[in-house]
Structure formats: C-alpha cells, structure tokens
C-alpha cells in the first residue's frame, strides 16, 4: 500500500513460508492426538500464533508497510490477546 514497493519478496520465500505453514498444520493435528493434558490448548495456540505471524508479516506484507498499519494491527492483536486472557479466567478456574 505504501506505493514504494522496494521490498520485493521472491517466490522462494513464499514457497518456504507456505511449506512452513503446512508443517505447522501437521504438527497441530499430531499434537491434538497426543494427550498433553492442560498443555494441549497452549501448544495449539502457540502454533497458531506463529502461523498468523508468518502470514501477517510475509503474505500480507505488513512488515514492510507504513507504521500506521502496524499500529492498527497491533491494536487488533492486543484486543484479541485480552479476549483470550479473559476467556481463560473462566476455563482455568471452572
């Protein structure tokens, strides 16, 4: 969106990221099969967080964008985090 477009990402990187995303999905499915007790959810969320970070930074080009977009995304991310924390106040103590 910045119009400068000086950060060109080559196809190799895209393919690498895509493979990484596939790998993470496989791990998520595998981990769901192993009984990790209370860490199951935590692991799944961690993997999901890494995956979305990859998508946001590379596929969506946010890494190379104007600060205002980073701020927007940061605020949305913070909101999501708070929502998770508050939901866990129920799940953990139920």
């Amino acid at each position, binding site marked *: 969106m910045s119009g400068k477009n000086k950060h060109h990402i080559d196809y190799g990187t895209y393919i690498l990221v895509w493979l990484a995303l596939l790998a993470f999905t496989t791990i998520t499915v595998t981990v769901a099969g192993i009984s990790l007790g209370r860490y199951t959810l935590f692991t799944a969320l961690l993997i999901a967080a890494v995956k979305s970070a990859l998508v946001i930074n590379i596929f969506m080009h946010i890494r190379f964008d104007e600060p205002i977009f980073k701020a927007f995304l940061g605020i949305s991310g913070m909101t999501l985090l708070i929502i998770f924390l508050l939901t866990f106040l129920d*799940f953990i103590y*139920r």
Partner: protein
Amino acid sequence: MADTVAGLPVQHAEKSFYQQSTNKYSGILSWLLTTDHKRIGIMYLAAIGFFFFVGAVIGLLMRLELIAPGRQIMDAQTYNSFFTLHGVIMIFLFIIPGLPAIFGNFFLPIQIGARDVAFPRLNLLSWYIYMIGAALVLVSLFLPGGPIDTGWTFYIPYSVRSTTNVSMAIFAAFVLGFSSILTGINFVTTTHRLRAPGMSFFKMPLFVWATYATAWIQIIATPVIGITILLVIIERLFGVGIFDPALGGDPILFQHMFWIYSHPAVYIMILPAMGVVSEIIPTFARRTIFGYKAIAMSSLAIAFVGYLVWAHHMFTSGMSDTARWIFSLLTFIVALPSGVKIFNWVATMYKGSIDPQPPFLWVMNFIFLFSIGGLTGLVLGSLATNIHLHDTYFVVAHFHYVMFGGTGTIFFAAMHYWFPKMFGKMYNIKLARIAVLLFFVGFNLLYFPKFIMGYMGMPRRYYDYLPQFEALQEISTVGSWIVVGTLFFILGYLIHALLKGKKATSNPWGGVTLEWHIASPPSMENFAEIPTVTREPYDFSQLKEMKNE
C-alpha cells in the same frame, strides 16, 4: 448563490444528487448501480426502514398474544418463532446497520469535507450483501422445517438440535456480518484519507468520531460471530462436537464466542447514536460542545472497554466464579465513559439558548430513556441481583430501554435532524412534536411494566403467564398500540413532507458543521470546491456570516 465554509466561498452546484447520476443510467438503474454515498445511504434507509416496520408489527402481534393468559392469536411454537424473528430482524437488520449505514454513509463524507467514501463501489457491494442477508432470512421462513425458533441468541445445545431452519437463518447473520465489516473498513479509510485540508482529527464533528470508533468495532468484533456461526453450522451438518455437550463439546464456549461479538455489537448500536446526540445538542443549544476531547476520547474508550465485559450475559451459565466477579467489576467500568458523555451533554445545555425543535426533543427523550436503560443495566451487572433477574422480563425491559429508547429514539432524532438536508423538504414541526410526546407515553407504558413483572418473576420468551401478571401485561399491550401507532404516524407525516412539504433551506436549524454549508439536498459531489477548514467544529460565531449569504 455563494456559501462560505470557514471563510472560503463555495459554489452551489445547480443540480442535486437526485438529478445527477454516477452512471449512464437514469431511473431505477441509476439507483441500483450508483456509487454515490448519499444515494446508497437512502437505499439503506428504504431497506432498513422496511425491516424495522416488519419487526415492529411482529412485536405488536406478540403483545396481542400476551394481552390475556392462555392462547389468544397464536400457538406456543409460533410465538417462539415470532420472538426469534423479531429479535433477529431488530438486531441484525435494523439496529446494528441502522445509524452507520444510513446516516454514516450520508453524512460522514460530507462532515469531513469529502466527495464520497474511500471505496464507493465497495459501499454499493455492502448494500447488496445486506440485501442478500435479508433475503436469506426471508427464504429461511418458508423452507420445510419452518422458521427458526431458538431466540436471536442461537444458544447451544438447542440450536444444534432444533429441527427448524436454523442453519440458513444463522447463515444470513453471517452474510450480514460481511456487510458490516465492509462498511467499517470503508469508514476507517475514509476518515484517515479523505479529510479536507485543515480538518485535523480534533476538528472532526463528534458524529464522525463516534462512527469512526464504531467502524473499528465492526472490523474487529464481527469476524468472531462469523466464525461462531460457521462452527454451529458445521456442528449441525456434520455432527462435529464443538459446542454440544452430548458430542463432547462445550456449550459455554459458544456463549463466550457469541457474546464476544454481540456485546461489542451493543456498542456498534449505541456509539453512533451518541455521536448524533453530540451533533444535535450544540445546534439547538447554540453553544459549542462542552468537553469536545473528552467526548471524542470516551467514544474510543467505550469502543475498547466494550470488548471486556461480554461475559456479564453469562453469570448464571456455569462460568467460573473468578470470571464472574471480574466481569462484574469490568461491567461497572463501562459506566464511566458513558457518564462522561451524559455530563458533557448536560453541561453543554447549561446556560445555552435552547430551541426545542423536534430533533432536540427526541434527544431529551433519549437522555431520559437511555438513563433508565443504563442504570438498570447496573442492576443486572451486579452478581447477586443478576441471579434473581436473569432471563426475566426485567432483561427484556432493560434492553428495549437501551436499544429502542436509546438507539431507536436517536434514529428518529437523526431522521428529524437531517431529513431537510437529505430530501430538501421540511416536515410539519407541530405534528413532529406531538409524535415525540406520544412515543414517550407509549414507550413507558409498553416497557416499564416489564421491569415490574420481571422483578416479580415473569420469565422472558413465554407465550403464557400466571393470572397475577394480567393487569401489567394488558397495560404493556396498550402501550404497544400507542408506540406502533406513533411509528405509522411519523411515517405518514414524513412521506407527506416528501411529497408535499415546504422546500427546506440549506440550514433550517442553524447548524455549523459542514453539511449545513451546502445545499439541501446536496449536489452529487457535495462540494464544488473542497473546503479548507479553519474553525472548530462547533464554533457558532460563524452562524452570522452563514446567514448573510
């Protein structure tokens, strides 16, 4: 005819936007394919207004059923479908899109000195998506299986087990969500990118601030309901155990996800309304708004804190005790930014020279009804009283006071405030004043008894009741006749004004925000020349020079 915006002459274009088309067509196609934000706003008005009347008539029929104990005009299952439909229509088709899609579309670009929204085509697409969503609701009524009967909250496990057309109806809500998200994106971008020179963030009218904060909620919260709805559909179609405990799911997780959207959605409903109030009060008190920055910031604060209180809808659902007291505490905190607004409005009126025109009277109506709604919200937000009042008529009364008495009332205020600008015609002021009074009386007759009945233990969503509620139920039903009668009365004199009304001047109320500097109705591009803004948004000293044109 020359007009001045902040000292600069602005030429009126001769033709209004009704006479100019953004495409090569004329007639109905020039509307259906338009990218003019004002025409799209009016198309939303037609659609949303229609559904509002449908919802109101369903409400009227429910009240008729409740006029006496036992079966009157419908059976229990029909009543179940009626309150569900009434809720779905009023929430998803009327009150959530209402103010942003109609008045936000029409006035946000004008108030910041722009020619249109940032993405005019996307804007038209949002309207079509809205219409598709509405059509899906209608189709779901007539397919085998019958109309949805889960209540507008679609609670699990019933919504997975009900044999009615749940999937299609909730898919409609999913589609409507997209319309809302796209509108939000459009408004955020417009506010950031298309402000006229000199229109800094702190020179924006407060309606723009409120609509901007709302747009953020639309963008961040709406996807959550989308995901939740898809999960319910997957669960219904494929029997995957996500929410239904019989399949190993977690029903409280559904309630969390539902309210993570639907509570912020309450602020999607009320924030633009508060923005309208902040426009109307200075205009009719002839005073600059008191505490401009505090009001602007409280909109953002409400938008943010609104995310943190959703589980106060779930105190009796079996949530953990820790979550319960924390959410109860957070709930009380939302009252603070709302209080900031109320006090600033009152301070604005203090020593103002008040001109009680219909829009102002609607706002007075709002302050009264919304305060009752808000304060009874605190009663429900306290853990102990919530146990007693949960799922009773007290809740029904509370949310009608905030949604209908709050946002609904402001919908009428905005309609009466901006009608001359949108249509270039003036309605009968005397009739409009009578309407406010009738509405006020009818509204309180309709809903106040519900507080008492709720306190006495009358559960919500019941089509029958014990004899001791009969008198109060009757009063409530009479109230519904007055309210719905008033709605048709308002519709009547507005349509009459449209067809036969006097021509409105460009600034009938003496407002000073940018929309009052241009013709009524505006030209297609709003401003012949984009204005340069030098004044504060509510600087009434410019009124003199505006009148001297």
